[in-house]
């Protein structure tokens, strides 16, 4: 045979084999689809059966903020596996959410019926979460263990007399100072007053290094609160209907705060971008580009990882007319959409009990329990600075609009001030006007609370109720 004809033979072979498979009749197609579909359905059924825990067991979804999962060998994971071993019928699914996102995420999720069972929430959000019906009222369950916790954090986690979360750890904002850089310029200790802060900061600003780190935007506004209180000012008026931080004490504090970067130039320029996350705020201190910063204990663990050899101290904040700092902390709550609230409560109670104090220590956090404070500070001498000023700590205002006021009205005014778009005085006036607008257009249920001077808890009048139906215009 010639080559041509062999090719021809091959082709016809191919053709004949093709003919066997060729016509996909509709019946065949449907049959194949049905078989595949049945196989898939069967596979899915068995798959879901195997992922569900054995009958009689409970699954709890726990949303925790990301600092608790993003360090190496997180103590929380060990604790959870310990809990699951002690309680065989419980399975805990951990979900890590960045603290910047936790508030919006949990409100949106619970509102959509998709929330977790247990969540870690900032004590500053309690009023908002209660108004949004995100957290379950646990007053009954909490009553038996209430006395084991510090009263300040307990009250911060309550709203209208009902308890919405269990205090987990408590913190306040203190002055972190770089001991090595202080030694190099011959300063023995951290500043204790505003004027000492200025002279110390100026001395430390040299050779491309800066004396004092600050925040922009929301971080800047938040860290200004201690200055406001130190000057003798208050955030809200006694009736809670307007803001009071625009008064003479507030103006003094705002102008002093703005003078540090604008007049004394003791702040690293990168502070202009340190408004979005906390990481951008404490990085210059970790890199020893800034000698001082004010922040809470949430900086300690990242600093340990970023620069373990950093020689620094933690001191109470400098004072003016009086000493003050902003008190905060995180709490654990059960959501209103949880299907197993009693199992969720059991887990929270275990997590915040005395034998589990080692968990928080692993994150350099101070438990909000009264009975472990002594042992905790024994393990963490660095934390003495926080303890010293704990008595002067004030919580942020306990109103639902607080987050909006802080992160929009005050943050924008601060951003405009530090960029010299407005003078400090104008900036503060803008903040006051915007904040009052937010307060007046309350979009939540009104209630009757009056600001209590010593704790800074805020309450609002019934006039809000009439306006509440009108839909907030926060522009």
């Amino acid at each position, binding site marked *: 045979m010639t080559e041509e004809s062999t090719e021809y033979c091959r082709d016809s072979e191919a053709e004949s084999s093709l003919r066997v498979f060729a016509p996909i009749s*509709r019946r065949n197609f449907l049959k194949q689809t049905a078989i595949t579909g049945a196989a898939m359905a069967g596979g899915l059924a068995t798959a879901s059966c195997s992922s569900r825990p054995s009958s009689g067991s409970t699954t709890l979804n726990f949303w925790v903020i990301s600092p608790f999962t993003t360090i190496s060998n997180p103590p929380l994971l060990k604790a959870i596996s310990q809990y699951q071993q002690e309680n065989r019928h419980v399975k805990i699914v951990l979900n890590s959410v960045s603290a910047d996102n936790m508030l*919006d995420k949990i*409100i*949106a999720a619970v*509102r959509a019926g998709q929330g977790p069972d247990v969540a870690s929430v900032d004590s500053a959000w309690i009023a*908002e979460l209660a*108004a*949004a019906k995100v957290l379950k009222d646990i007053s009954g369950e909490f009553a038996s263990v209430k006395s084991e916790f510090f009263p300040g954090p307990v009250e911060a986690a309550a709203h209208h007399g009902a308890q919405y979360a269990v205090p987990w750890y408590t913190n306040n904002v203190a002055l972190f100072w770089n001991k090595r850089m202080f030694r190099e310029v011959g300063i023995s200790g951290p500043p204790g007053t505003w004027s000492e802060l200025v002279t110390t900061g100026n001395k430390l600003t040299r050779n491309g290094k800066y004396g004092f780190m600050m925040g*922009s*935007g929301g971080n800047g506004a938040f860290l200004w609160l201690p200055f406001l209180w130190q000057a003798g000012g208050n955030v809200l008026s006694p009736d809670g209907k307007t803001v009071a931080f625009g008064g003479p004490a507030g103006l003094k504090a705002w102008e002093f705060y703005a003078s540090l970067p604008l007049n004394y130039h003791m702040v*690293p*320029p*990168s*502070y*202009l*971008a*340190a*408004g*979005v996350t906390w990481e*951008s705020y404490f*990085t*210059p201190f970790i*890199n020893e*580009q800034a000698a001082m910063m004010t922040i809470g204990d949430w900086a300690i663990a990242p600093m340990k990882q970023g620069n373990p050899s950093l020689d620094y101290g933690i001191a109470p904040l400098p004072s003016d007319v009086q000493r003050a700092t902003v008190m905060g902390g995180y709490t654990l709550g059960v959501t209103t959409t949880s299907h197993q609230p009693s199992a969720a409560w059991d887990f929270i109670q275990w997590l915040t009990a005395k034998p589990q104090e080692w968990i928080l220590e692993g994150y350099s956090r101070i438990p909000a329990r009264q009975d472990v404070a002594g042992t905790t500070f024994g393990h963490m001498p660095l934390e003495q600075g926080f303890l010293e000023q704990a008595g002067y700590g004030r919580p942020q205002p306990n109103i*639902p609009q607080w*987050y*909006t006021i802080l*992160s*929009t009205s005050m943050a*924008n005014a601060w*951003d*405009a001030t530090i*960029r010299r*778009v407005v003078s400090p005085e104008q900036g503060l006036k803008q903040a006051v006007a915007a904040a009052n607008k937010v307060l007046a257009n309350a*979009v*939540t*249920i009104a209630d009757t609370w009056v600001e209590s001077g010593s704790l800074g808890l805020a309450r609002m009048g019934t006039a809000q109720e009439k306006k*509440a*139906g*009108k*839909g*907030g*215009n*926060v*522009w």
Partner: protein
Amino acid sequence: MGRGVPVGKKHGIRRAAAAVPGARRVSARPRRARFVRRQRLFGYGLVIPATVVLGAVLGAPTVDAFILSLTNSSLIGTGSRFVGPDNFTALLTSGEFWSITKTTVIWTAANTGAQLLVGTGMALLLKSSSRVDKVLRSIALLPWAVPSIVAAAVWRFMYDPASGVIDHLLLSAHLIHQPVVWLGEISTALPAVILESVWKGSPLVMIIVLAGLQTIPPEIEEAAIIDGAGGFQRLVRIKLPLIRTTLALATILTVAYTVNNFNAIWLMTQGGPLQSTQILFTWGYQIGFQQFNLGQAAAISVVLFGALMIIAVVYFLTLERKGRES
């Protein structure tokens, strides 16, 4: 003759054949028509489930957003009341809306223009089938393949004045004497985020334009060379006009992705500083999920939707008209 069937136009050729003596009457034409129709129906049947699902997943939230924009619904309040056009009037009379719209337009125009330029340029440079070009094309595709969250985070670190690589290089090259706070200054924040977005999105334009370039028959270019057309003339007079539809597709896709680019802006500046990088999309998110005002957030998204629809329709109509004219 066979059965007396009238030979009419309706029955076409087959019927005429039936008029021929001895021919068997075949009704093949109607049978074929039935077969084609059944095939078409079968095709529709296969597509309908996907269409229904897509319609539900895309359509229902859109309708929901329209309804929401007419209420004063809040994420943390109780109950929502119908307020009609109040949200829209408040929106259109607020100065903030117009300045953010202006920023959105600048953001979109700058991004689209730059991405088209860079993407088309890369496509023209790397269009040959040599191995070098193939490798370079794969490398050029990497920015698009990187997850947008990773890209935004890495660029944010690069822009850091103290520890970022950009300021470090610029200082070492003595191009600047002080570190520039790219994401913190009002004058540099938007250009900085645009740069990241152009880096990320140009490969997509490159891929689309490459596909378009491959549809140009080489004979046309050869004829132009013979006629004495220079490289630039060939590019502007021949290649670009021939891939006009492709460029239109690339443009509309880039516009759509850019207007909806949440990650780049949110992760780098969150719309700051002082709204200098705020676009309608991120602003809507803030209003809805940080100020909990869902009604107004929905109004913003409805306005955005409307604007995009108008742009898309006008764009394609213009294109179609130009295509018919040429």
